[in-house]
């Protein structure tokens, strides 16, 4: 029970401080899940992101469910997911009930101007960390660069990127095994 409560609280913290969707969440996940609580390794978190990318549903929720399940089975999955959505539920309900034009307040806009800059810095930091842990050879450099360009400039669906890059990983493995 104590473990489940802890899962709930940690994911509350993650949900409550994620601005701008699933990707912005990764720096906090790394800190809370990988470095502080050791509930998953960095590789597992990345794999889970990849899985979350091409399965239905919200990526943040998929990640919470995955880590919760890995740590404490189905009750863990439910506790982590509940934690992840709880801050949204409270904050949005209050806004829906009381503030009609929340984003019209100047203070809110200025605060978010600053927050967006911090989010950019955090994401850059995450990409550097991921680069260090996941790009091991030329194939990695090519896949990283191609994925970035495909999504940022060409507008290819992330699902395609996930499918093609994992196929490339498997094909390379088969080719290398044959050569040896």
């Amino acid at each position, binding site marked *: 029970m104590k473990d489940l409560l802890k899962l709930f609280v940690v994911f509350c913290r993650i*949900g409550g401080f994620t601005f701008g969707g699933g990707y912005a969440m990764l720096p906090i996940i790394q800190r809370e899940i990988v470095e502080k609580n050791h509930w998953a390794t960095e590789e597992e978190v990345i794999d889970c992101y990849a899985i979350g990318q091409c399965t*239905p549903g919200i990526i943040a929720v*998929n990640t919470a469910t995955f880590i919760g399940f890995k740590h404490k089975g189905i009750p863990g999955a439910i506790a982590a997911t509940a934690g992840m959505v709880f801050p*949204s539920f409270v904050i949005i309900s209050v806004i829906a009930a009381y503030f009609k034009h929340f984003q019209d307040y100047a203070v809110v806009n200025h*605060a978010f101007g600053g927050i967006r800059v911090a989010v950019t810095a955090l994401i850059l930091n995450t990409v550097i960390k991921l680069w260090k842990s996941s790009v091991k050879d030329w194939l990695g450099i090519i896949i990283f660069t191609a*994925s970035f360009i495909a*999504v940022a400039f060409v507008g290819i669906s992330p699902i395609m990127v996930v499918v093609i890059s994992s196929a490339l990983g498997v094909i390379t493995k088969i080719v290398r095994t044959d050569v040896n």
Partner: protein
Amino acid sequence: MIYMLLFLEFFKTGLFAVGGGLATLPFLQNISDKYGWFTSQELIDMIAISESTPGPIGINMATYVGYKTAYLPGAVIAILGLVTPSVIIIVLIAHYYMKFNEHPMVQAGFYGLRPAVAGLIGAAGFEVAKLSLFNTNKYLLTQKFADIVNIKSLLLFAVIVFLLNKYKKHPIYFLLGAAVIGIIFKY
């Protein structure tokens, strides 16, 4: 009755919306057209609110729509509907992942996949950077190259990157600090 419908509609959304929060948008548009629980104007307000409050965008949108449709119980039911398919699917996948992730072929797949995820996140960061560090719109208006960079934001960006690497504090401190600086210096 409306609760049942709300649950079913959001269950469908959760089951078919692949690829993150804004992917739910076409489904919500469809719900709006079909039932008239909320207007298109409310949908647009909702995107702005969802993007400027903490939490996953998809969950924020579901909460808002659920609340507008049937108040607090509506919000709870919309969230439940949205997350139920993911929880079932991910529990199944996680189960097999833990069983098969030592398999050489699965390892090879993820070996190719991990750099791609780093690239995907880089691309998402690039989108955020366009909004937060550059004034693309102002540049298009004035055509002056000096207008494209937002010095104030770049400065804050450089400071945060430096501090992040030097002190390795929890990201929450940087987010709160940036919000305060944003308010004081009118970002």
